[in-house]
């Protein structure tokens, strides 16, 4: 799987198990009234893509083609990777009805520990990286304990974590910065898969693009076959074909763009694996379904035999590991461990999740939605920077986009409610 474009990111078809209803707000899984109503049910997800595409095209035109230039696409992926990684963990926490404000500080703390372990203790970087993930898990277990078993609201626990782990990062680094890091470690954040060939298009990236396309079509068809076997209604065939053609075209286009620059960023492979795995977990695993059940109605989940405390605990452990991974990527990319690293990352990740259609009250949201939300923020940042828009205006515009996205959700929900009752 390589070169996930926005669209590919939203189509990680579960291998093996077909699922007849898309998760989240679209809700309508067994369309019986044809394509139109099917698409109407998917309005939120489709709208999100259209918004992303419109934004990309807008910047492509206003920046005279710089936005989709190979080097910029490569940079976009690399520079937004850690926010996208955080958004994956964050959307799961938010679906369960919680929040995590500490992720930025945990990024700093794990980055700091990586610096300390590699440069001061002289540990080999792969060992340090694994230890950092363990530290992330411990941080998550600490917060998860207070939230799940002690019953303190996540907002409070992670606000405390935000302060405490920022302090811990500063203590670990003794308020100094650590640099440089070994090349291997830096590659996690900024490296590329080894390139073959020297001129023109880098073949490995193209091959990965083709493999990804074939995998997408294969899993899509397999899902349809399974649903047919169970005699279940499926999405309209025309829509399926349109979606596939569009997706494959995008994957190959991004593949070509990356191939004509330096190839496939390693962090993109990491991200693609995370998106596929976590989408499957949230869509089809018992654990993921329990997360939705807890967010939708905690009491009902409890009385249905869901081990709500354990699920909540594990969610925060997972968030800790993901934060640590984001910390490794960020530190590697900057080639620097800094006590102020990751400042405000939690807000970007949370914004991505809500732009991606998650509900503040829990129970609703998708991994892919959060990724697209994160990409929208990333492209806004990138495009406005190229256009030379000042950071003050960038912040202003991002704020308005977040508000508009959620307002659109609320509007949609109200319209849906008034049409049924």
């Amino acid at each position, binding site marked *: 799987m390589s070169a996930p474009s926005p669209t590919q990111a939203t189509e990680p078809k579960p291998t093996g198990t077909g699922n007849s209803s898309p998760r989240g707000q679209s*809700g309508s899984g067994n369309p019986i009234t044809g394509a139109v109503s099917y698409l109407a049910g998917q309005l939120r997800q489709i709208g999100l893509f259209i918004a992303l595409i419109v934004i990309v095209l807008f910047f492509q035109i206003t920046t005279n083609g710089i936005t989709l230039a190979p080097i910029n696409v490569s940079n976009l992926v690399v520079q937004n990777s850690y926010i996208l990684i955080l958004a994956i963990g964050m959307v799961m926490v938010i679906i369960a009805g919680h929040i995590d404000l500490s992720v930025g500080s945990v990024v700093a703390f794990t980055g700091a520990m990586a610096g300390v372990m590699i440069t001061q203790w002289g540990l080999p970087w792969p060992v340090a990286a694994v230890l950092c993930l363990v530290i992330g898990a411990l941080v998550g277990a600490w917060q998860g304990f207070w939230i799940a078993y002690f019953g303190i609201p996540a907002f409070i626990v992670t606000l405390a974590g935000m302060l405490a782990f920022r302090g811990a990062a500063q203590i670990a680094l003794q308020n100094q910065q650590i640099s440089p890091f070994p090349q291997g470690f830096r590659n996690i954040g900024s490296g590329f898969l080894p390139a073959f060939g020297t001129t023109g298009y880098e073949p490995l990236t193209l091959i990965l693009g083709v493999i990804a396309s074939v995998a997408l079509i294969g899993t899509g068809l397999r899902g349809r076959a399974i649903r047919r076997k169970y005699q279940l209604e499926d999405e309209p065939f025309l829509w399926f074909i349109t979606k596939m053609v569009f997706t494959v075209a995008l994957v190959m286009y991004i593949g070509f763009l990356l191939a004509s620059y330096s190839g496939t960023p390693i962090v993109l492979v990491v991200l693609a694996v995370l998106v596929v795995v976590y989408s499957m977990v949230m869509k089809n695993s018992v654990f993921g379904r329990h997360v939705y059940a807890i967010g939708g109605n905690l009491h009902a989940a409890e009385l249905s035999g869901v081990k709500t405390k354990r699920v909540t605990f594990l969610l925060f452990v997972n968030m800790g590991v993901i934060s640590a991974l984001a910390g490794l990527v960020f530190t590697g990319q900057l080639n620097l461990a800094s006590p102020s690293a990751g400042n405000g990352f939690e807000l970007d990740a949370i914004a991505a999740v809500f732009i991606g259609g998650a509900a503040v009250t829990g129970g609703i949201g998708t991994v892919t939605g959060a990724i697209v939300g994160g990409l929208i923020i990333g492209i806004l940042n990138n495009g406005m920077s190229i256009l030379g828009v000042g950071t003050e205006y960038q912040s202003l515009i991002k704020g308005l986009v977040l508000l508009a996205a959620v307002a659109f959700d609320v509007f949609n929900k109200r319209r849906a409610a008034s049409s*049924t009752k």
Partner: protein
Amino acid sequence: MANTILEMRDITKTFPGVKALQDVTLEVERGQVHAICGENGAGKSTLMKVLSGVYPAGSFDGQILLDGQPVEFKNINDSEAAGVVIIHQELALSPFLSIAENIFLGNEQSKGGFIDWNKTNLDAAGLLARVGLRDNPITKVTDIGVGKQQLVEIAKALSKKVKLLILDEPTAALNDDDSAHLLDLIKSLQGQGITSIIISHKLNEIKEIADKVTIIRDGKTIETLDMHAGEVSEDRIIKGMVGRDLESRYPAHESSIGEELLRIEDWTVHHPLDASREIIHQANLAVAAGEIVGIAGLMGAGRTELAMSVFGKSYGTGISGTVYKRGEKIDTSTVTKAIAAGIAYATEDRKKYGLNLIDDIQRNVSGSALRKLAKLGFVNGSEESTVAERYRKSMNIKAPTVAAVTGKLSGGNQQKVVLSKWMYADPDVLILDEPTRGIDVGAKYEIYTIINQLADQGKGVIVISSELPELLGICDRIYTLSEGRITADVPIADATPEFLLKYMTLERESPVNERA
């Protein structure tokens, strides 16, 4: 027509795709108690929302005359200013404010922008006296029971100089005592010249207090019956509501009772916040295969607490006692273990504790037995849809597909989803807590049929209900529960409402565990 306080003429209200009300007419005489009956979804609540301005004038066709004058309410404030006040089924009180603050919420007794606390509390006390509530007006609403909260709502309505009081299912959440008190209050308000419109499923209450009954079915007025003109029986009202004669409200059923399935011995439960308070005291009960056992008790007797404490210690602390299944001791200390041991508990509050309302039917049906559909931790979604579809058909759940969101279903259909969920978990014993609460007559019959089928499959069914006729209609045996103690265990042949009531109200001093 000086005696007519309200006339609604040819009211038609259309939602996209549905005609909720069609040419509905309603005429209410001054000083009367006028009941409105109809199955769920018949349009009763919609009609009241039209009347109270929740649906503003212009969003519906037809005319509303109040005291002979045409009125056009744009919102609730308009209707309240005209003396029309609606009290919704779900109470709209702010729990952490005092009774007085709630009564004057939105209508604060102030001087120069500052609250006049003396006047607020004094006036509130006066209003409380009128509704027969002796609590201090500075008590927080969260500290008084649901029955008293309902009275606070009425006091609030009185503070608005109400002429026409609309009560939507006022006794749905009340126990018999509180209900009786509320009905008395409505009658005494009638004496004070306040006209009431009461929406209720409880036909015995309607018989007791209503002067007239208007029956609505499928968004149309069917008839208005004068309760004083001859004997209007409950069956007569039901006939109007369902549009057919319901031969019996309870399906005929012959239980074939097998070996003992579940036995609960010496079950004692303490209050979760006050460990010194005993909620259940040394309860003993049993259910056999194929048997339908009822638990009768007043609200507060500990019915739900007993069931939930057995089901994974979901209620209470300091729980002691033993649960046996087929004579062997079983562990029900967590919900997961209780389910694994073959026990299911369908809650009395399906919206709060039973369903994930934002999720669809299939995911709710699979909710308590998801692992049955999973391989290596991953759920087979197609299998899940198939299973849910099977229940949608067999339980007659009225929804286009199993992907329909449960929050949009009617109460009866939601209850069927809850039952499907537990049937799919395939337990040996089902504890059904108020399985027909807030459900219309037709759907109740279907639920009773399902309960009978479960018993016929050899499962033990325990039904907790506030409605004695229901227990008498479907059970093979009934336990009475009073103040946390099982006071009687009576086979259906010997059970009468009088007998049950006697033991449901038995005082603690004389604990009897008699076999009648």
